[in-house]
């Protein structure tokens, strides 16, 4: 049971840490000041959420958040490959945020009734943040997905490139049944269904076309430590200062 729980928590925390880290790369470089500020807040939220989950893991016997987050190598991370991809241009980062946040909305929603008390509490605590992240993504995608030829083309291209990776969010865990039976989590399949439904619903209000998900091969492997060439450099960068002197208190 512990193993199943830890697997779930690690993948969630790793997703949040990595996407938060990626999105923090936009600080100071956003397309307009107000959006720059909003995007940075959401990146802080994601990293803060990952820290809370690592703290839950710590109580379950894992090392402290700073150690777990800043000293593991790529093959020890369980984030989906989607979140480690470079930020690209704003259309990609926005589309990634939109697709990822809808999954987060449903994931945390299903965890708010979890039999594992700490995660249920976290779900309640983060409700407002996730709500804001989705509010942001939805309003921007709806406007940009209808606005100009360029915005529609860019977002369509990003959507097409993202979908195979986004499907990797729902890569099945070896512990699906156990987690479902113990009422800890409703499982990736249910999550994917709800996510798909929400994504379609919103995209119908735009000029963007959601590809047929049945025709797409999901890009998987992240959950078992198989990553793209982007993750290790990301982790090296993240721990660069820490590694200058691992004995130091910074």
């Amino acid at each position, binding site marked *: 049971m512990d193993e199943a729980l830890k697997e779930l928590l690690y993948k969630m925390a790793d997703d949040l840490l990595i996407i938060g880290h990626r999105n923090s790369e936009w600080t100071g470089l956003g397309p307009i000041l107000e959006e720059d500020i909003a995007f940075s807040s959401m990146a802080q939220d994601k990293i803060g959420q990952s820290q809370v989950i690592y703290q839950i893991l710590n109580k379950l016997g894992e090392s402290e958040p700073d150690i777990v987050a800043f000293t593991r190598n790529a093959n020890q991370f369980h984030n989906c490959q989607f979140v480690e991809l470079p930020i690209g241009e704003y259309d990609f980062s926005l589309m990634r945020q939109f697709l990822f946040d809808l999954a987060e909305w449903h994931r945390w929603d299903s965890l708010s009734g979890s039999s594992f008390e700490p995660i249920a509490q976290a779900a309640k605590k983060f409700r407002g943040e996730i709500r804001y992240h989705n509010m942001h993504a939805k309003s921007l995608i709806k406007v940009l997905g209808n606005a100009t030829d360029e915005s529609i083309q860019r977002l369509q291209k990003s959507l097409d490139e993202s979908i195979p990776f986004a499907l990797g969010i729902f890569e099945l865990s070896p512990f699906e049944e156990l987690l479902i039976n113990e009422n800890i989590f409703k499982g990736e399949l249910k999550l994917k269904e709800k996510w798909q439904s929400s994504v379609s619903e919103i995209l119908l209000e735009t000029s963007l076309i959601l590809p047929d998900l049945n025709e797409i091969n999901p890009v998987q492997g992240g959950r078992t430590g198989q990553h793209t060439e982007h993750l290790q450099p990301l982790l090296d960068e993240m721990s660069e200062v820490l590694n200058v002197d691992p004995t*130091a208190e910074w």
Partner: protein
Amino acid sequence: MSKDFLADEDPVKLQEFEDRIERGEKIEPVDWMPKLYRKQLIRMIEQHAHSEIIGSLPEGTWITRAPGFKRKLALMAKVQDEVGHAQLLYSAAETLGKSREQMIVDLINGKSKYSNIFNYPAYTWADSCFISWLVDAGAIVNQVANSRGSYGPYCRALERICVEEAFHLKYGHHCVIHMATGTDIQKKMMQEAINRWWKPMLMFFGPPDKISAHTETLMKWKVKMLSNDDTRQQFLGMYVPKIWELDLTIPDEKLRKNDDGKWEYTEPDWEEFKRVINGDGPCNAERLAVRRTAEERGRWVREALNRPKATYVTPLA
């Protein structure tokens, strides 16, 4: 002294304007104001805004490399604040009639200036700590003084900024304390950063002021609040003891406090200052290139965010 720059201003209105300022009341956007007042404020506020957005770059480079959750989150929040300050300051300048489009264009085309200290590179984590603590400390001296100025929108922006700067200052000091009292590697890194940044830091407050009718008028109108030398002295008085108490040295043999309370120091090389601020510094090209690239790459987003019936009006407050 000649006051030709006020020659074609309505003397009655000018008197009312000056009386209001002397009474300690704020000037608001709808009020009558002399051309020089408007022009000088636009320049000042705009430059301040540009300094914030450019200033986000040297520290911004360390966000992805910040050591540990606490530093990572704090640095993200700090740099975000700087972008936020730029937004607040551009908004204040907009009330005076210059559009944000024009201000940004003037920055990225090299027409407007920003604080020279950001033309230097943040080589190490310790450099970012120096900036977070001492450059922000310098900025706070100016900001606190200017928040008592006469123009309402600028004062309101500065009040907000000062509140957030309290966090920046404490965070920066916290980082430097850890470095200076930490391992040998940390101490060395911190000392080297101080050695690199001290001269630019002294120049941050600007060259000694030339006394002119201009300066006198601007001080009467509470546009300029303190002389450059005064702000420099304030900074030295507040922060040199704090640097020394951490056993960090400052690369200036002349630096000491006289019996009369005034700080002695080696006069900065104002020729170097002029060269750097006019484009010949280590990072000038990169800073502007980054802003240009960010603007150009974000253009499609802004175009898409333009409503067909959008209309711009000068902000009221």
